């Protein structure tokens, strides 16, 4: 049940001992990067000042802005001729960022992904289809190399073309699929249209879902629709990509591989560590990477460490499912709201479909929220529709403390999205 028992079954003291060794090695490596050399000097810090894991807190945080400011190679800790691959973010929100990999980095990345896939029961003999975009997006090549490392037959179907995707699943006997959660729902809809019953007509058994925050209700829906077990995957391009944290068969939190990363959870405002078990921003330090190590990288993802031991026998701690991002938080009438809170409520109504859209507008100085959601089955009954609308509104208000305008839509009226689903549209104008 363990692909790397020597790492996966380490006790806490053994993990921490390994982490300190690898941290110190990483910091020595960082001194070859112009960026970290300058950072340490500015902070009056020398590598030998880091003598314990607690000393990590002396090191300043690294942010996405740092990656942008030092675009493209300013954080490289190896000569460029040792770099064999780079991945870059799209740069839609500013200058793109670049992550560099040596051959060893790519090998270790593939090992981490293979470990995750093995953990949820995938083996040589499985047929693994990946519906991620390939190229710069790390969900493509990341899963590709990890799945090949395990010896599975891989189908790099890539994103889009849903009918072809389904044809592959059917014709090749795909047993495991990687898809973002909103796309899993889309696949099911198109299967229905094509008259395909996923239980009867396919061999799908395992689904890997990630990249979008989603609720447990949404996962259960996907499992019921497709007749699979669905496991939550967490990764980000700054930390290589997929393979950072993954659910085990217990499906209760994502084990983060602490032989690769040191985990901290901090308050996004004060940047102080939050008490054990409380929600805050995830901060990661890479301790198994050579081309571009990152120290105390602020991921902007909000989560918490789940307290207690996991029945699977791994002592690598578990992250709770992502609560959203510290930067996709909406502030409405002074209230902090995360889209996932709204999703959790909507998913409890069996009358509603999987797609929804939150629109923020303002009239004078008044913020307004509209929640549009698709109705699964339509019956000609105004009274029922009104009652349903009222009940959704009431439950949302209880959760987010403001009253949204709830709009029920006919099935299929929200724009279909093949990439990361856009759940929030902020059309508010600044009134200054």
């Amino acid at each position, binding site marked *: 049940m363990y692909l790397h028992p020597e790492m996966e079954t380490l006790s806490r003291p053994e993990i921490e001992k390994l982490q300190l060794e690898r941290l110190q090695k990483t910091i020595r490596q960082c001194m070859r990067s112009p960026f970290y050399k300058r950072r340490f000097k500015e902070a009056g810090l020398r590598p030998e000042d880091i003598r314990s894991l607690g000393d990590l807190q002396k090191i300043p945080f690294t942010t996405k802005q740092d990656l942008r400011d030092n675009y493209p190679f300013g954080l490289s800790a190896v000569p460029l001729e040792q770099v064999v691959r780079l991945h870059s973010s799209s740069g839609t929100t500013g200058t793109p960022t670049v992550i560099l990999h040596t051959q060893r980095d790519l090998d270790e990345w593939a090992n981490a992904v293979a470990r995750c896939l093995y953990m949820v029961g995938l083996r040589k003999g499985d047929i693994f289809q990946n519906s991620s975009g390939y190229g710069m997006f790390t969900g493509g090549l990341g899963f590709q190399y990890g799945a090949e490392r395990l010896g599975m037959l891989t189908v790099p179907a890539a994103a889009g073309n849903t009918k072809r995707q389904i044809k592959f699943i059917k014709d090749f006997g795909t047993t495991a699929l990687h898809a973002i959660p909103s796309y899993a729902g889309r696949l099911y809809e198109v299967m229905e249209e094509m008259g395909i019953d996923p239980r009867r007509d396919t061999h799908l058994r395992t689904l890997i879902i990630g990249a979008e925050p989603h609720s447990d209700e949404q996962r259960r829906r996907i499992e019921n629709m497709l007749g699979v077990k669905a496991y939550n995957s967490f990764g980000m391009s700054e930390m290589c990509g997929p393979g950072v944290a993954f659910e085990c068969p217990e499906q209760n939190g994502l084990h983060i591989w602490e032989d690769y990363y040191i985990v901290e959870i901090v308050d996004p405002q004060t940047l102080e560590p939050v008490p054990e078990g409380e929600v805050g921003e995830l901060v990661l330090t890479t301790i198994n990477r050579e081309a571009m190590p990152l120290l105390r990288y602020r991921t902007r993802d909000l989560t918490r460490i789940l307290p207690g031991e996991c029945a699977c026998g791994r002592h690598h701690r578990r992250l709770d499912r992502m609560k959203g991002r510290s930067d996709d938080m909406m502030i409405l009438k002074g209230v902090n709201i995360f889209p996932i809170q709204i999703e959790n409520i909507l998913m409890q109504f069996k009358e509603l479909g999987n797609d929804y859209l939150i629109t923020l507008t303002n009239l004078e100085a008044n913020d307004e929220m509209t929640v549009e959601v698709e109705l699964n089955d*339509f019956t*000609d009954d105004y009274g029922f529709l009104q009652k349903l609308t009222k009940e959704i509104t009431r439950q949302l208000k209880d959760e987010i403390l403001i009253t949204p305008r709830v*709009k*029920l839509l006919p099935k*299929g009226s929200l724009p279909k999205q093949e990439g990361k689903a856009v759940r929030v549209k902020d059309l508010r104008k600044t009134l200054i």
Partner: protein
Amino acid sequence: MTIHQLSVFIENKSGTLLQVLELLKEANIQLIASTISDTVEYGIYRIICSEPLRAYETLKQAGISASLSDVFAITLDNQPGRAADAIRSFTRAGIGISYLYSFLLAGKGILVFRTDDTGKTREVILRDRLSYVEEKDLIRMV
């Protein structure tokens, strides 16, 4: 005693009504009567047409949210006061009208409606000898 009514759930957005009508046109389905009420959030477009079952299948296949329901259709002589007489029968029997629309066909007035008590409505129609149309007659009258 009832006829099929096709109900379509449409978003309050330009072009959605036309889309439904184009689909019915392509399927060569004739509208006999239809009604739509204005609400801010969503609209229900109710249709009496030739071949309601085929119309329903046509819309379903195009991914349109639609449903079929049974409604009453009674005929009235084309004279003042006939609608009042008919509704009086239901009101006296304590039956509530959920919605109602009317049209003229082959010189007859036709009231289409749904009530909050289908069983009782049937009894009143028979007891008071109100004349009602069957679906096949309705299509013949067009």
